């Protein structure tokens, strides 16, 4: 994990959001835009984490539910997720989150490695942790987050 934190420290501005009460951030460089809830077309037989397809100005974007991806409890019935549209390896993917936060500047905040006690599914996609005065920001690795086939199933898997 130390190598990961070293590379992450470069990004200082994060687009933040909440998923199941956790405070996450993705480097603004990886975020294309943030959208409120969008109508989705479900894809039968797709991976559980794929909630559907979104029409983003003519481009078809896959929506990945971060709650499912991170192994967090499902969203309450009727709660509409928001979209954080990220660019990952030449594709545009939407991360479904509960609520959108501000863009924050983390200059001056310390960079800490992921606590070993964090559940494997979560630790797998969190690059590092940046404690703030009132919250702890979990820095998400967008590439890993959209890679739904790399989900760590067994606890304690850590990085794979």
């Amino acid at each position: 994990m130390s190598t990961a934190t070293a590379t992450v420290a470069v990004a200082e501005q994060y687009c933040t959001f909440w998923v199941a009460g956790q405070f996450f951030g993705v480097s603004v460089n990886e975020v294309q835009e943030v959208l409120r809830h969008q109508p989705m077309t479900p894809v039968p037989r797709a991976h559980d984490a794929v909630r559907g397809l979104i029409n983003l100005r003519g481009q078809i974007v896959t929506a990945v539910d971060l709650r499912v991806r991170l192994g967090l409890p499902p969203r309450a019935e009727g709660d509409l997720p928001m979209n954080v549209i990220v660019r990952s390896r030449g594709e545009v993917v939407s991360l479904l989150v509960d609520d959108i936060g501000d863009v924050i500047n983390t200059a001056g905040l310390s960079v800490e490695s992921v606590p070993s006690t964090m559940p494997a599914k979560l630790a797998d996609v969190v690059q590092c942790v940046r404690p703030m005065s009132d919250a702890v920001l979990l820095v998400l690795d967008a590439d890993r987050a959209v890679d739904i086939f790399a989900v760590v199933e067994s606890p304690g898997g850590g990085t794979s």
Partner: protein
Amino acid sequence: MDDDAEIIAEFLVESHENLDQLDRDLVELEQNPGSRELLSSIFRTIHTIKGTSGFLAFGRLEKLTHVGETLLSKLRDGEYAMNEAIAESLLRMVDTVRLLLEGIERTGNDKDPNVDVVPIQAAIELLLEHRGVLPSAEPVVEESAPMAEDAAPVVEHAPVEEPEAGVPEQAPRDEVVETPVEAPVVEAPVVEAPVAVAPAGSPAAETDGWDGTERRSVADSSVRVDVDLLDNLVQLVGELVLTRNQILQRTESQDDPDLLRASQRLDLVASELQESVMKTRMQPIGQVWSKMPRIVRDLAHQLGREVDLQMDGHDTEMDRSVLEAVKDPLTHMVRNSMDHGIERPEDRVAAGKSRTGILSLRAFHESGQVIVEIRDDGKGIDPARISAVALERGVITRDQLARMDTKEIVNLIFRPGFSTAETVTNVSGRGVGMDVVRSNIERIGGSVDVSSEVGKGSTFRIRIPLTLAIIPALVVGEGEERYAIAQANLVELVRIEGDDLERQVEDLGGAPVLRLRGRLLPLVNLAEALGGRPEPSDHLTVVVVQADDVRFGLCVNAVHDTQEIVVKPIGRQLKELAMYAGATIMGDGKVALILDIPGMAQEQGVGAVEQELLTARASLDEEDRTALLVLEVSDGRRAALPLASVARLEEFPHDRIERTGSVEVVQYRDGLLQLVRLAPAIGLLDTSDRQEQVSVIVHELADRSVGIVIDRVLDVVDSALVLSEVGGRYGVKGSAVVQDHVTDIVDLEAVVARTGVIA
């Protein structure tokens, strides 16, 4: 002539590009006189122009470039050293070449009297005579004099006479002339003359032929554009069209006349924009065909054939992605026609034909598709030989062959593993030919077939969509969502309701099939394929689809309409799902998935069953392969009977079985169906009561139906039946190995007769 014009236009564009490069190279060469690399590059360019102009019979251009080339070759070989005089004359030559090219573009030939090639030609020849160094001023003066004379009348006539107007166009050249003349510093008047011409001539040059409109030269009228940029444009325009649709819907209910006018205009502009943008991706098939004469010539040589290649429809346009995809299949088919179609000259003469075979390529648009025909007047395809080879290679069974017509047989050449080439050549025919051609064409939504007459020749016909980006599709509904099926996969729509539902749809061991014109069509329920449950309904809507050799019926909830859809890729997260070919955006802005029929067939395991079911109606006695219904009786014992004798499969709850005397019956279709338990009838222990439901095979006789009670249906197989006497007994003809298991072959007559005896 059309061809020529096309070649000339290409030559012009290419040459203009080359000349620009040449200018830079020449200037650089002056800085860096020793560079062999630069010299070689310049030499190649001039050489190319010379070669092509010779080919196109542009004599003046050829002569000029010829002397230039000679001079360059001396430089390149190090015989001459670069000096200012040489550089100047080369630049002048390039300028003159450019003028000649402009003349060619205007008039189609290089005879433009306004362009004088003599002075520069003479100047270079002079340089050549003097081994690249001008020894004294005198010859230069001699050479320059005619220049001055040439130029002199220009000053007088320029405004009046047309032909002279061209000369001032040489203004840059004239300025160039200045230097070699000046270098030796001899006579001032000579120098002056051209200088004097230049300012007088320049305005004349500008007015020449300028009629107030901007005339674009060939080189300026086209721009190279990145394909990604075009794709992006196509996508954006698609989005614009959707937005327009939404706006039009809204404005219909508005009274504001200005808004209505504006939206109508938006409508028009968006439509035109869409059309134009699609056109930017269109390319003529001529681009592929231009390579054919060479391929045909080489092949004819190699194969000892005499072939006259005729091509028609060069300018038939299609999307570049389609063109790219058909390039290789087309080339392969041309090779194939030369190798297998057109005979050797001596064979042709023996057959009473002309020595030279005709290979004709034709392309045209027809009902929104591009048709490409490849026709030869060769020996044709012999159905008898095709059938023999197909049987020998195991491509089809004798049984299947018997039901094929000639055209179907001829089209067997597109099956995998098929090649009739008696000898394997390096041209075509290792059995990896036509099936690859077909699958490549089908992949882009096209189709290919062949018709042939023995001794007369064959015609291959390829149908390809104009574009891959937009395809016609059928939109069907399932649950809340819509799904698109490419029209290319569509065969027909069938709706079954009421009694027909029971009569035409059968359940063969959990696999539903539809009786459609005497054939059994495997059915796939879309809702189930999508992981849901089908809604119970009193009717069935079947979309009959086909992909490769697999045909099946897709049961859908609703059929909406056919429309043109824009195919868009789906993300990496969904790539593992073979059943989707992509997605599209519907008129209301919602996303719909496009079903991939081949992928679906594979996923649902339809492919394997299909071939067997096609032959399911075969009768037992005359064919060596038989479609059998394999079933289980008496707790795990296998038995089989010909599928042809099975009318329906039914399941009844136990309590529906009633008795009349010693006979078991069920009430069935307004009558009584007499039952006979198969196990005891063939001397086995009856265990059919152990099942939750009673499985019954309905066998129809001339005057009545009989229900044969079995444990359950296992499978339908198409199997070579080698009957063994072993196990033969009353009700059993014998046993055979079916699917690696010993299976009793039921003597249906005997079993049915038992019911008669009891009744």
